[in-house]
């Protein structure tokens, strides 16, 4: 049986998505549905998507990733994309897919720190 769902893990107030396979279009769309409903269910404060194992990306997958990030941002859960491979980065740039709203980090560690910093910033804003 082939894997047709990307697992979404809850880590404290954040959701962690680790994409370990080259996604097909269906899997990407399923992830989009799953992630948005999970954010609503658990009231997540941030999403971290690890794509370090993703070696191939086409314009559809690139746009879907951008959409997922925009959707979770709209649901007040900032998204950080971590571990993009050089080849994937070059492809995304050459395809002209705009990931302008997406925050990025080199690895999961830094991505988590970035999310924590974003949450702390929001706290201080709320208190002020």
């Amino acid at each position, binding site marked *: 049986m082939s894997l047709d769902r990307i697992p979404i893990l809850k880590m404290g107030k954040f959701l962690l998505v680790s994409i370990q396979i080259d996604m097909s279009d269906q899997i990407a769309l399923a992830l989009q549905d799953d992630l948005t409903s999970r954010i609503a269910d658990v009231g997540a404060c941030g999403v971290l998507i690890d794509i370090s194992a993703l070696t191939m990306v086409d314009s559809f997958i690139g746009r879907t990733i951008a959409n997922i990030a925009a959707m979770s941002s709209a649901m007040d859960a900032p998204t950080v994309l971590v571990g*993009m*491979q*050089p080849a994937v980065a*070059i492809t995304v*740039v*050459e395809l002209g897919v705009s990931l302008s709203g997406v925050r*990025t980090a*080199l690895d999961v560690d830094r*991505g988590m720190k970035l999310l924590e910093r974003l949450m702390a910033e929001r706290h201080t804003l709320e208190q002020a």
Partner: protein
Amino acid sequence: MSRIAKLIRTQEERLVRDWMREQSTRASKSGMARDTELRAHAQEILRLLADALESSDGVAHSASPAFAPLREMLTGLSRTRGHQGFSPSDTVHFILSIKRPLLALAAEEGGDKGALFDEVNRVNLVIDELGVFTTEVHQKSREEVIRRQQTEMLELSTPVVKLWDGVLALPLIGTLDSQRTSVVMETLLQRIVDTSSAVAIIDITGVPTVDTLVAQHLIKTVAAARLMGAECIVSGIRPQIAQTIVHLGVDLSNIVTKSTLADAFAIALRHVGLQVTKKSA
């Protein structure tokens, strides 16, 4: 065909002598070749030519397998002469100047004049072809040198240096074309992953001109690095380059630019949470 071959074999001594005399009338450039060396080459060429003419048996064509040893020898000759700084015309002249002594020798020959003329004609053609062949070899060896230098330059010109933990620098020197830029882009991005650096500085002080293509490549590199989670700073924007960029209408507003590498390094240090302080005396 064998008559000419026989002539060459029996009269080799005289042919070489006349051939050398032909050489000495040439401009001083060919005087660069040492006499003994030239003589050795001449003897070898004559021997190989005679062999080839004998075995080719009527079908005198320089591309036929019978001429392979001769072609091989000429390839070596043309190459070494090229390295020694001879012009291709020197080498071609050297080959072609065998004709006069050879024809003179054939003219003295008695017997069936018609058949001899036919033979001489074909040998003449073969020698011409060999002359062209040496030029081709010369050209090819030159192209090889150029290609090798190009790849060497490509390797030399893309060093990614580590300035600090988490800070990389890429000093670009020389003109950027698309091939070079893509190599630069890939090495930089790979190094960012390998060293997990948060900041990369691209220094373009050594880039003489920035056109739209180069600017486009820079923007792409910065965008790709950003996707991977690293910040890119472009430094070394000289006044002329700033002017060209603005006149070309290239939008660099999304990219952090600094005029010197030092400024960029200061920003980079701040980005990774470090600061430089003066040691108290």
